[in-house]
C-alpha cells in the first residue's frame, strides 16, 4: 500500500479557487430546489391519499425527524470539527469544504430517493394490499428483472419446485442457485488461489516488509525532490533568529500546541525549565535551542521533535521562545543551568550541547 502523501503545499491550495468546488455547490443548490419541489408534490399526493382513504397512515413525524436530524448532524459535525478539519487535507482533493459538500449532496440524494419512493408508494394502487390476503399477487406476465437475475421460478409456477418438506408448517422450495452467486463463489475461489500464488508460491508479490521498504524509499525520493525546490530549509548550523511578526505568531501557536504542557503557558516552567530567564541547561543561542528541540535531550522529558515539526517550524518556535527573554511571568520556576551570555562566536555555545541524542527515533 502506498501512503497518501500530500503533494500540494498547504498554503497555496485553496478550494475556493477550484472550479469543481463551485460546480458542486451548483449541484447541491439544484438538488435542494428539486427537493423542495418534491416536497410540494409529496404534500399534494399525501393529501389526496388521505382523502381516498385507501392508504394506511404513515409515520410522517418519523420521516421528518429523520430528515431534520440527518441535516442537523451533518451540519453540527462539520461545524464542531471546523478547526481541525480546515487543516485536514487528504490527497489534496478531499479537504473540508469538499467533504462537507459531498456529504450534503449524498444526503440530498438520499432525501430525493426517499421522496421518490414515498410518492411512488402513495400513488401506486396496491391490488394485493388487502387485509388478510395471505397469498402474493403475481401481477406480472413475464419474468421480472429479479427473477431473471436469480433464475428464480415465478411465484405462480412454484408448485413445481415445492419439495415435500414440511417442518412445523415451513415448506421449502428448491430454486436453482442464483447464477451470479454461484459464479461469484467460483470466482472468489479462483482469486484465492491466484492471491496465494502471487504472494507465496512463485509470484513476485511483495512481503509486508518489502512493501515497507518501498514505502520508505518512495518517501525519501519525494522529500529529496521537495528539498531541491524548497526554500527556507534550515538546520542547527544555519538557523538564524527570526524576528518578523508572522514567524513569531506561528512560533507562538506552535508553542501553545506542543510546549506548554511541560514549560507552562507563559514559558514560566513546569516539569520543564523556565524559558524566560537567562539560565540555559543546553545553551541559549538560537542554534543551541534549535538543536535541543530538534534532537531532544536524553534522560530528560525533552523529546526529539524532528518527526513532529518541520525545520521552519522549529526555527519559528525557537525564535518565539527567545522573544520571551525577560518577560518575567507569574510563578516562575527557579533558574536551572548556567547563566548564558551571548557570545560573538556562536559555535562555542553549540559545543555546550550534549552530543548524544534520543535519535533512536527511526526516520
Amino acid at each position, binding site marked *: 500500500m502506498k501512503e497518501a502523501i500530500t503533494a500540494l503545499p498547504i498554503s497555496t491550495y485553496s478550494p475556493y479557487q477550484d472550479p469543481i468546488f463551485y460546480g458542486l455547490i451548483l449541484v447541491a443548490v439544484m438538488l435542494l430546489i428539486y427537493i423542495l419541489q418534491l416536497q410540494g408534490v409529496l404534500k399534494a399526493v399525501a393529501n389526496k391519499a388521505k382523502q381516498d382513504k385507501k392508504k394506511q397512515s404513515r409515520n410522517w413525524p418519523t420521516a421528518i425527524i429523520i430528515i431534520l436530524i440527518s441535516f442537523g448532524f451533518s451540519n453540527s459535525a462539520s461545524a464542531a470539527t471546523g478547526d481541525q478539519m480546515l487543516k485536514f487535507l487528504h490527497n489534496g482533493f478531499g479537504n473540508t469544504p469538499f467533504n462537507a459538500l459531498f456529504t450534503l449532496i449524498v444526503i440530498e440524494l438520499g432525501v430525493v430517493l426517499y421522496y421518490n419512493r414515498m410518492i411512488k408508494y402513495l400513488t401506486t394502487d396496491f391490488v394485493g394490499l388487502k387485509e388478510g390476503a395471505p397469498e402474493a399477487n403475481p401481477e406480472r406476465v413475464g419474468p421480472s428483472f429479479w427473477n431473471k437475475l436469480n433464475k428464480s421460478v415465478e411465484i405462480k409456477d412454484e408448485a413445481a419446485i415445492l419439495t415435500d418438506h414440511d417442518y412445523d408448517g415451513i415448506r421449502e422450495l428448491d430454486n*436453482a442457485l442464483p447464477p451470479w452467486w454461484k459464479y461469484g463463489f467460483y470466482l472468489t475461489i479462483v482469486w484465492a488461489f491466484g492471491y496465494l500464488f502471487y504472494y507465496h508460491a512463485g509470484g513476485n508479490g511483495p512481503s509486508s516488509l518489502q512493501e515497507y521498504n518501498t514505502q520508505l524509499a518512495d518517501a525519501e525520493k519525494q522529500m529529496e525532490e521537495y528539498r531541491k525546490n524548497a526554500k527556507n530549509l534550515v538546520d542547527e548550523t544555519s538557523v538564524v533568529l527570526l524576528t518578523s511578526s508572522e514567524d513569531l505568531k506561528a512560533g507562538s501557536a506552535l508553542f501553545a500546541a506542543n510546549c506548554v504542557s511541560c514549560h507552562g503557558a507563559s514559558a514560566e516552567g513546569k516539569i520543564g525549565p523556565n524559558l524566560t530567564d537567562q539560565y540555559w541547561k543546553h545553551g541559549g543561542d538560537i542554534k543551541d535551542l534549535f538543536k535541543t528541540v530538534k534532537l531532544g535531550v536524553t534522560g530528560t522529558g525533552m523529546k526529539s521533535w524532528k518527526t513532529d515539526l518541520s525545520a521552519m517550524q522549529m526555527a519559528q518556535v525557537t525564535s518565539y521562545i527567545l522573544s520571551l527573554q525577560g518577560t518575567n511571568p507569574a510563578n516562575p520556576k527557579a533558574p536551572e543551568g548556567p547563566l548564558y551570555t551571548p557570545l560573538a562566536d556562536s559555535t562555542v555555545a553549540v559545543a555546550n550541547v550534549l552530543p548524544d541524542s534520543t535519535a*533512536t527515533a527511526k526516520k
Partner: protein
Amino acid sequence: MNTETFYYDNKIVKQFAIATAMWGLVGMLVGLTIALQMVWPFLNFNIPQTTFGRLRPLHTNAIIFAFVGNGIFMGVYYSLQRLTKARMFSDFLSKIHFWGWQLIIVLAALSLVMGYTTGKEYAELEWPIDILITLVWVIFGVNMFGTLIKRRERHLYVAIWFFIGTWVTVAMLHIVNSIELPVSFTKSYSYYAGVQDALVQWWYGHNAVAFFLTTPYLGLMYYFIPKAANRPIYSYRLSIIHFWALIFIYIWAGPHHLLYTSLPDWAQSMGTVFSIMLLAPSWGGMINGLLTLRGAWDRVRESAVLKFMVVAITAYGMATFEGPMLSLKNVNAISHFTDWTIAHVHVGALGWNGFLTFGVLYWIIPRMWQTDLYSKKWANWHFWIGTLGILLYAIPMYWAGWMQSSMWNEFTPEGQLQYQFLETVQTMRPFYMARSLGGLLYLVGAIIMVVNLVKTAKQGVFLAQEKAEAAPLEKVRITGNEHWHRVIERRPLQMLVFALVLVAIGGVIEMIPTFLVKENIPTIAAVKPYTPLELEGRDIYIREGCYTCHSQMIRPFRSETARYGDYSKAGEFVYDHPFQWGSKRTGPDLAREGAGSLKRMDSWHYNHMMDPSSISTGSIMPRYPWLFEDKIDFAEITNKMKAMQTLGVPYTDADIAAGADSARRQAQQITNGLMLEFKQNQLLTSDEGLQPDHEILALIAYLQRLGRDAAPVQQ
C-alpha cells in the same frame, strides 16, 4: 399410525425471553455509558469499577453472551421443539441451563468490574467461569441432542443444522482459547504467548462472531422468517451449499484481524483469501432470507416483525460484504485500529443481532401469551427510532475511522508527521458525541419495546404447556429416489461429527505450523523476561483494560515507525502471556513506550496516570487515582513467576525465590528517582503520600520496559 399428544415447554422460552430483554437493556446501557466516557472522561468518577477499561469488556460480554446468548437460547428452545415435534429432552436440564447461564452472566459482570480478567478480548472471563461456561454449554448440548434423539420429525430442518454447527464449534473455540494456567482463584495466564496467543485469540475472536453471533442467528432466521411471512424457504439446495461452505470457510478467516502484524505473512494471507471466499457463503443466507419474502413484500410494510427482520438481514448482508473487504491488506491498512472497525461491528450487532432479536420477541411474546401485540404503533416507532439510532451510530463512526486513519498517515512535504496523536483524538470528539446520541436512540427504542411487550403479556394469558400432536417415528427403510443430503438430515450425531471435522481443519492447518516451525517466530537474543515488578505492572495493565484503547503493535508503515519507532517483531513477544497487541487505538500505540524518542521520565507517567489531561491537554483518558493508594501484593509475585516458569518463561528458581525482594528493590528505586525529580522540578502534583509499595510504581516499571529490549535506550 397412532398420534401422540405432548406439550411444548413455553416456560423455558419465556424465561430466556425475559433474560434477553433485561440483559439487552443492561448491555446497551453500559455501552452508552462508555460511549459518553469517550467524550467526557470524568464520567468514570475516578472509581476503578466504572472506568472504561473495565466497562468495555463488560459491554462486549453483556451484549454477546448475555443479550445475544439468551436470545439464541430463547429462539432455539422455541423453534427446536416445534421443528422436531418434541418437548425438550429434560425440563431439569433446561432449568439448569437457564439458571447456570444467568449465574455465569452475574459472575462475569461482577468479576469484570472488579478487574478479574484474562486480558483476551471477548474471552476476558477468568478460569472458574470458563469452566462453568463449559459445563453449562455441555448441558445445553445434551438437552439439544436428547431432544433430537426423541424427535418425531424424521429429517432435520436447516435451522437445526445451524444449531448443531454452532454448538460444536463454540465448544471447540471456547476450550482451545481458554487453556490457561491458574495462579489463584481469580488470576490465570494464557498458555500461549505472543504471536501464538494472538493467532489462537483471533481464531477464537473472529469465530465468536461467526458461531455465536452469526450461525445461530441464521438458524433463527430460517425458522422465524418463513413463519412470520408465511412463505416457503426460497431454495433448499442453497441452504445446503451455503451452510457447509460457511462453517468450513469461516473458521480460517481469523488471521485477518492480524494483517501487517508480526504474524507470519503466509498466515495473514490465509486470513485474507478465506475471508474473500466467505463472501458468497455469507450472502447465501441473506439471499435465502430475502428471497423467501418474494411475494410477501406487501406484508413487510404492514408487519413490524418482518420490518425488523428485513433490516436485520440487510445489515447482515452489508456487514458480511464489508468484512471481506476489510480483510484486504490495503483496506485493512486504513481501517485497522480505527473507529471504522467499531462502526463495522455495530452494524452487525445493532442491525443483525439486535433487530432480529427484536423481531423474534415481537413474534413469540403475543403467541405465547395468546393475544395480540399491545401496540403496533409503538412497535413501528421502535423500528424507526432503532433504525435512526443505527444510522446515527454508524455514519459518524465510519467517518471518524476514515479521518483517524488519514490524519495518522499524513506527512508534511518535508517529511514530518502532520498531526500529533492528541490532535487526532480531539478531532474525534464530535463524532463520539453523535455516536452516543445514536446509541441513546437505540436504547430508547429497546425500552419502548420492553414496555410494549410487558403490556402485551399483561393483557394476555401465558400458555406454559402448549399442546401438540404428532405421530412417533417408526423404524423404516428409506428406499427410492431422494436428495443425497436427506441422508445426513436423518443423522444428527453424524452431522455433529462432520461439522466438527470441517471446522477443525482450518484451525489445525493455521495453528500447528505457527507453533511448531521455528522460522515462524524468529527469536531475538536481547529480549529477556520481565523483572518481577514489571510482571506485576503488566498484570495491572491487563486488569485496568489498557488494551481496550492502546495497541502494542507497530505495523511496518512509514507513518507508524515515524510515530512509534521500529516496527514490532514476532520475537519481542515470546514472554507475553497473554499478548496485548490490542485492536483499537483510541490512545497511541505503546509497544515502544519505554524506548527511543518516546521514552519519558518516570514523573511524566506518575503525573499522567494521576491526571492525564494535566499533561496532555484535551486527552480523553480517565484518571487512575486508586493506583496511588492500592498496594502491590509482593507475596503474590512469587506465585506469578512460578506460573510463568511453568509456561516456559526462563526464570530460574533463584530468580523466583528473590522475586519479592527484587520487586521491592525496583519499586524503591523508582520511588527514590521520583522523589528526586519532584524536588528538582517543583511538580504541580504533590508527592505527599508516595509510598514504595503503591501499584503505580509497578505500572511505571512496566511502561518503561516496553520496547526496550529490542531498541535499547542509548545512554
